[in-house]
């Protein structure tokens, strides 16, 4: 065993996965871990707060066990598929493997290098996800929450390791198929495996529930399976109940599984990697085949301008078995969702199902499954079409024509999925026949929306590779939007409303607007995209604004949340706010410092003489707005925070100290950090406006307060750029706030 070989292989794999994050990539594992710990801790604290001293009743152990075993089932298989997926979707993996196999590196070392890279990338992710899902149940068993979480992490590591090991071991077989020039077959195979697992999960759930109910803890042969072993452990840690083997034996068996797989892998590593190559097959296309005839006829509904291009794209995708296999995953997810959550599935005995709820649940199920298909299709956009990008962009109006044809292609691609689903809904008597047409229209509109959104997101933030971090972010954003909008009808019904024509029209109207917006930006971004780096000016700007919004959210909302326990335990608002704002200032200084130019804020006294003028302008604006506020039916809150200070009876001195800290923090972030960063993407005026808009977003407590903040933001931004000094901004802002606060105190 040679460590340098292992490290080399590990590095090449890890660097490929994080290629778009070159600058941070050495910090990624640490950032990941820190993020997980902080986030997990936060969730725990919030959960503890919400629960208070209430006792949570123990659920019926058979149902709990079967639910957790389904969770373990997916926790086992998802990691198994991740390494496979990465190999299949990483375009250069094959070449890297060939180079590695031609070098004197031993196969065992390649295997271990691969394994390590998979571990760094996937293990923390899955363990974190698993612990997060289980966190609501923590705190009911014999151990303290902290110890319970640690135990859970350990169990999950053992289980996920089995999956990752298996995945890494099977990957050479997938390579074998790829090396036979059948990349598409490899991908199709992978997707069919995923679909099968999902469909298999439902009967398994039923079976385990029944067995646990009848046998009172004796699972028989089932208890030897890795995921039931970990389920037994999880149930024991959470509730102290033993089902199946005793905890020690479970741990031992899980260890054994890992060990056996690892030993087998090392023993057969040579054989795994030495599979021979074959010659690709020749293929002729029959132009007058029935399928081609069908395709060219159904595409006649498309406007003529886009028809031929759509037809070409359709032919291209239907000849690729991989694309077709993606439909199976959509079907599998849909079947899983509908049968798990509908009145005909797991909840067949429940009385709360109404016609509307049923409709909403089925709609939700179908749209979420179509989201999977659409996103897998769209996330391979670069891989599918990159070669052709240059030619498309060199043809007149090519970007628009291509993107719109792509939308048509995706719609046609999803039609078979829809037909199959609706046949299923009808034949299995899940839906009444008269509801189906309206549901179909609903789903079609929503699918169109999803297609536009996903393409838009992808074109704003394209990735070289399907399985990299960029796409991971894209898929998160896409699912967030998809979940949000498809859960609106569901939440509607749950809150006791019925579908009305007006509500549906408004909902569809909003969807259309958003879809249109995304597609226009997507086309623009594609049109201006630089083909080497896959970046365009417009996408850079959008990504920057999103980044700044996330920064603002995390600085001003998540940082205070971190200290919430201090507030609750000491009950001292001044102390709490003092710590919050001091750490925000420190963080701001850190963010400014880690930028490339390390341009720390200037503190000079240029233009101090002009400052009274700006101060008067600010006060005049405030005066006008306060007078205007009499027209409104509610009181004018100058700033949320000052109202809070007064409400909580802080004395004047404490308020002044806090205001001083807040002003420094705000000026550092809005005037220095945001403006300096945005000057790289925007002009001076745009930068000032952007920072002012974000500043006003920060003052959402009253319409007039928003206007006031916008005005103040523009003015202070102007001062910042004119004199290039942070001192001036802090001075004006502080005096202005002081006057207002003094005014409020004197009124009281």
């Amino acid at each position, binding site marked *: 065993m040679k460590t340098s070989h292992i490290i080399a292989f590990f590095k090449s794999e890890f660097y490929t996965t994080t290629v778009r994050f070159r600058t941070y990539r050495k910090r990624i594992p640490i950032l990941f871990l820190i993020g997980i710990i902080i986030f997990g801790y936060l969730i725990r604290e919030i959960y503890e707060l919400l629960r208070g001293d209430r006792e949570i009743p123990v659920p019926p152990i058979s149902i709990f066990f079967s639910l957790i075993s389904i969770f373990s089932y997916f926790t086992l298989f998802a990691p198994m598929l991740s390494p496979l997926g990465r190999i299949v979707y990483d375009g250069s993996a094959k070449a890297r493997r060939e180079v590695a196999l031609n070098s004197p590196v031993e196969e065992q070392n390649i295997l271990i290098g691969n394994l390590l890279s998979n571990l760094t990338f996937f293990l923390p992710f899955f363990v974190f996800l698993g612990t997060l899902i289980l966190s609501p149940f923590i705190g009911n068993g014999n151990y303290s929450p902290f110890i319970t979480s640690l135990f859970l992490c350990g169990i999950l590591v053992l289980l996920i390791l089995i999956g990752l090991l298996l995945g890494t071991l099977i990957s050479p077989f997938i390579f074998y198929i790829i090396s036979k020039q059948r990349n598409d077959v490899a991908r199709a195979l992978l997707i069919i495996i995923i679909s099968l697992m999902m469909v298999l999960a439902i009967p398994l759930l039923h079976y385990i529930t029944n067995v646990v109910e009848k046998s009172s803890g004796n699972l028989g042969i089932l208890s030897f399976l890795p995921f039931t072993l970990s389920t037994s452990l999880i149930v024991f840690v959470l509730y102290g109940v033993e089902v199946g083997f005793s905890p020690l034996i479970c741990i031992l068996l899980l260890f054994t599984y890992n060990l056996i797989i690892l030993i087998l892998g090392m023993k057969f590593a040579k054989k795994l990697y030495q599979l021979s190559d074959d010659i*690709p*097959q*020749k*293929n*002729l*296309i*029959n*132009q007058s085949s029935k399928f081609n005839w069908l395709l060219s006829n159904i595409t006649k509904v498309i406007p003529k301008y886009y028809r*031929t*291009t759509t037809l*070409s794209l359709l*032919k*291209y*995708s239907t*000849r*690729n078995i991989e694309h077709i296999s993606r439909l199976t995953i959509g079907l599998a997810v849909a079947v899983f969702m509908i049968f798990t959550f509908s009145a005909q599935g797991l909840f067949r005995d429940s009385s709360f199902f109404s016609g509307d709820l049923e409709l909403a649940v089925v709609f939700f199920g179908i749209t979420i499954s179509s989201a999977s298909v659409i996103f897998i299709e769209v996330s391979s956009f670069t891989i599918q079409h990159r*070669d*052709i*990008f*240059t*030619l*498309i*962009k*060199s*043809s*007149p*109006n*090519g970007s628009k*024509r*291509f993107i719109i044809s792509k939308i048509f292609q995706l719609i046609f691609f999803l039609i078979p999925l829809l037909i199959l689903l609706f046949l299923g809904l009808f034949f299995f008597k899940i839906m009444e026949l008269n509801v189906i047409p309206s549901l179909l229209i609903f789903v079609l509109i929503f699918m169109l929306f999803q297609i536009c959104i996903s393409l838009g997101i992808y074109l704003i933030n394209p990735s070289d590779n399907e399985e990299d971090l960029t796409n991971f972010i894209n898929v998160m954003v896409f699912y967030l939007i998809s979940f949000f909008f498809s859960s609106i009808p569901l939440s509607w019904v749950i809150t006791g409303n019925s579908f009305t024509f007006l509500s549906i029209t408004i909902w569809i109207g909003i969807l259309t607007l958003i879809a249109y917006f995304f597609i226009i930006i997507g086309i623009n971004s594609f049109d*201006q995209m*630089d*083909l*080497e*780096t896959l970046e365009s000016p417009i996408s850079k700007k959008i990504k920057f604004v999103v980044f700044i919004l996330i920064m603002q959210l995390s600085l001003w909302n998540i940082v205070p949340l971190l200290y919430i326990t201090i507030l609750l335990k000491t009950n001292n608002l001044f102390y709490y706010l003092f710590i919050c704002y001091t750490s925000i200032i420190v963080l701001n200084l850190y963010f400014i410092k880690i930028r490339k130019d390390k341009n720390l804020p200037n503190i000079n006294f240029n233009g101090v003489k002009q400052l009274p003028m700006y101060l008067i302008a600010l006060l005049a604006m405030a005066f006008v707005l306060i007078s205007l506020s009499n027209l409104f039916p509610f009181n004018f809150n100058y700033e949320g925070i000052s109202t809070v200070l007064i409400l909580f009876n802080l004395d004047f001195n404490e308020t002044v100290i806090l205001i001083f800290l807040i002003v420094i923090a705000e000026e550092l972030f809005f005037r220095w950090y945001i403006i300096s960063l945005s000057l790289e993407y925007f002009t001076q005026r745009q930068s000032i406006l952007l920072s002012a808009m974000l500043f006003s977003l920060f003052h959402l407590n009253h319409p007039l307060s928003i206007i006031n903040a916008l005005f103040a933001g523009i003015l202070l931004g102007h001062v910042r750029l004119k004199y290039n000094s942070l001192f001036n901004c802090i001075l004006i802002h502080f005096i202005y706030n002081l006057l207002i606060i003094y005014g409020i105190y004197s009124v009281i």
Partner: protein
Amino acid sequence: MNTGLETRGIKKYFSDIVALDDINLKLDKGAIVGLLGPNGAGKSTLVRLLSGVMRPTSGEAYIYGYDLQKNIDDIKRITGLLPEEHALYEKLSVYEYIEFIGTLYDLDRTLIEIKFATLSEVLNLNLLRDRLIETLSKGQKQKVAILSALIHDPKILFLDEPLANLDIRAQKIVRDLIKKFKDESKIIMIATHLLSNIETICDYLVVINRGIIVFQGTIEAFKGSFENLEDAYLNMVDLV
């Protein structure tokens, strides 16, 4: 008014990297222009700029009277581009692919059929009409790509490394085709780092190095006092 292409002070930056700096070109109609330079000199960037794929950071360009900043779609319509890498859909047949590209240039089906028939005859591709592109050899793929660049009868043809990956016979066919395409109203620009192609095909030469034009003129002027092209080229590129 025999100038077909003129650029004034074209610059292109990729964030802070200068890809092209102050490009001033003047090309006559009817010329076959060789764009010569070492790897990474900016040849592909220039070709992409002039065919409308990329926008310049600053500068002006006029192509057959059209302004690169304003009439970008008109420029795209009259230019044909053969990209450096194979730009093909592997899962389409040769004819289906050509039909796709033809449609992008708004040609109707009958016209595509006619153009395909004549061009595939010349390129010796007519037997491969219904073959999937993924089953073709590298040289055959290059021929398909060349065919697709010619399908809309462009006034300016940009060929980025047209002879790469071709066997000797195919190279000859492509060379003959380029000569055949030569017309008093057209410009062909061949970006390459292979000197041997330049001498046999081109009659005008542009040498580019590190984003700067170091020479433009006829082949004879380029050779100057040197015995052959290679010496002249090495001398020029080394100087910069």
